[in-house]
């Protein structure tokens, strides 16, 4: 596999504030890359840079091995971005879907291409092509917006929460259309989604972002606190159900947010007794996701109203007999936390 994107030392600043800092990132051609992270973590900024809608303040981007020096129409037309609440142009559905082709001067088989794109997103061209933009529901609008991008057969399809604010059926159709585009055209897909099932079920790789940085190429548990200082050099976060999580205090004493790798959490049915781990908290399994192409499963456990995720092997999963709704102990060390 070759990299379609290579990002080196990318920095983006808005009003002297650094919002994105990515030392190194490669995205393989034809891959599906999921991006997760809380609001304000820099996901949308990264998407706009990948879609060549904005230029980073510093750093180098290589696209298909070519060093991107100037962003021109030719380059921008290779990648297209679908926004969370895509706006349709004040035209008919047909003209919306045909806009990008017209912009590229493509006239050949225009009608056939537009109709095919509409069919891909589950809209009957005979019924929908002549409709105006205001005659569509939210889900239909988003499907038309996706069809407007699929018809362009882009090398890269970038999606920012494409199914967040629409009905379940439209969401399912959109997901299928995206996967079909990848299968038929080899399109590279970069998708931001809060839908963990989707991210882990369909993605070849998941990037977890926080404070403008890619924290790991996997999900991380983000513990915002509030943290209380103890006298023994540890800090403590109290959960709603009376349990507490203990961590070694950060060297600078500045308590903000702690990150915990799912690899560092062990699941157990019985109390492990004397162990070096300071934390043993009880919770209920709420979700299990098989990682795409991996032999591991991400198990999300609700602990005191707070969701924490652990990565376990499929073997451990069957040995523990885990199913959603079952109670389980999460065991992890006070030294396992990283502070940001």
């Amino acid at each position, binding site marked *: 596999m070759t990299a379609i994107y290579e990002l080196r030392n990318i920095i983006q600043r808005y009003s002297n504030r650094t919002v994105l800092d990515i030392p190194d990132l490669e995205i393989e051609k034809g891959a599906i890359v999921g991006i997760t992270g809380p609001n304000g973590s820099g996901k949308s900024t990264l998407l706009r840079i990948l*879609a060549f*809608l904005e230029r980073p303040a510093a750093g180098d981007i290589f696209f298909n091995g070519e060093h991107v020096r100037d962003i021109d*129409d030719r380059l*921008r*037309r290779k990648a*297209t*971005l*679908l*926004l969370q*609440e*895509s*706006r*349709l*142009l*004040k035209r008919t559905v047909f003209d919306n879907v045909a*806009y*990008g082709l017209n*912009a*590229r001067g493509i006239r050949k088989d225009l009608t056939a291409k537009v109709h095919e794109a509409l069919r891909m997103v589950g809209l009957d061209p005979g019924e929908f092509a002549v409709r105006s933009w*205001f005659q569509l529901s939210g889900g239909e609008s988003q499907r038309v917006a996706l069809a*407007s*991008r699929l018809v*362009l057969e882009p090398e890269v399809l970038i999606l920012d929460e494409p199914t967040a604010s629409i009905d379940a059926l439209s969401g399912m159709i959109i997901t299928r259309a995206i996967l079909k585009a990848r299968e038929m055209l080899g399109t590279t897909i970069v998708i931001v989604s809060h839908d963990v099932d989707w991210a882990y079920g369909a993605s070849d790789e998941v990037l977890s972002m926080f404070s403008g940085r890619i924290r790991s190429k996997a999900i991380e548990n983000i513990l915002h606190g509030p943290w209380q200082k103890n006298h023994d050099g540890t800090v403590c976060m109290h959960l709603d159900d009376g349990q507490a999580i203990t961590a070694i205090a950060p060297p600078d004493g500045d308590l903000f947010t702690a990150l915990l790798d799912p690899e560092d959490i062990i699941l157990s049915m019985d109390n492990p007794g004397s162990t070096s781990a300071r934390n043993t908290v009880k919770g209920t399994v709420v979700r299990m996701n098989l990682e795409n192409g991996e032999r591991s499963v991400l198990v999300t456990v609700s602990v005191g109203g707070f969701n924490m995720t652990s990565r376990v092997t499929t073997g451990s999963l069957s040995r523990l007999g885990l199913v959603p709704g079952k109670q389980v102990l999460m065991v992890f060390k006070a030294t396992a936390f990283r502070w940001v």
Partner: protein
Amino acid sequence: MGYLVEGFKTAFVILFTGQEETFSAIFTTLKVSTFSITITLAVGIPLGFLLGYYSFPGKRVCRTVVDTLLALPTVVVGLLVYAFISRVGPLGSFGLLFSLKGVAIGQFVLGLPIVVSLTASATEQMENSVRLTLMTLGASPGQLAASSLWEGRYAVLAAAMTAYSRIISEVGVSMMIGGNIKWRTRTITTAIALETGKGQFAEGIALGIVLLGIAFTVNAVVSLARRRASS
């Protein structure tokens, strides 16, 4: 009150019998205002779009000047244009004074700030998502500008109609520049002023009804456009 009722009755008779003098004023009004608004839009829409779409040094000053000119009294426009096109003025040699071309120049000066200001506002208020959407679909800079303007077409239409309402209802420019010459430069508004002065209420009312009809039509189109724009 009797003379008013009588005035309305006579006004309808005038309109339905097609009194030549009255219809001359109506056609002159439509002719000069159509010409004025065409030139005003041809110049004003691109200027307004540039003012709203692009950032440049002095943009705020430009906006303030244009917005101030919105309140320009018609007699002041008449005075200024008169000064330029009168025989002793810099454009005196063109013989524009007391002609419909001269009136059109005055109406252009009157309508231009309205079209520029409202088009600029419409462009500024356009959501950033429109620009982003067009860019993600691969629009070139030229296509981006043209499509953005097209997306704001209902607001621009409202600007055009507002300017037309102002142009068709003004009296200062038509009176001072056109001179209210019968069969030549007499418009609906100058004719109303004249007939009222003469005590001929029926003719004034007849012309007033026509002017109101035009204003009503224009406003109906504007409100329809706004409804479409907000949907």
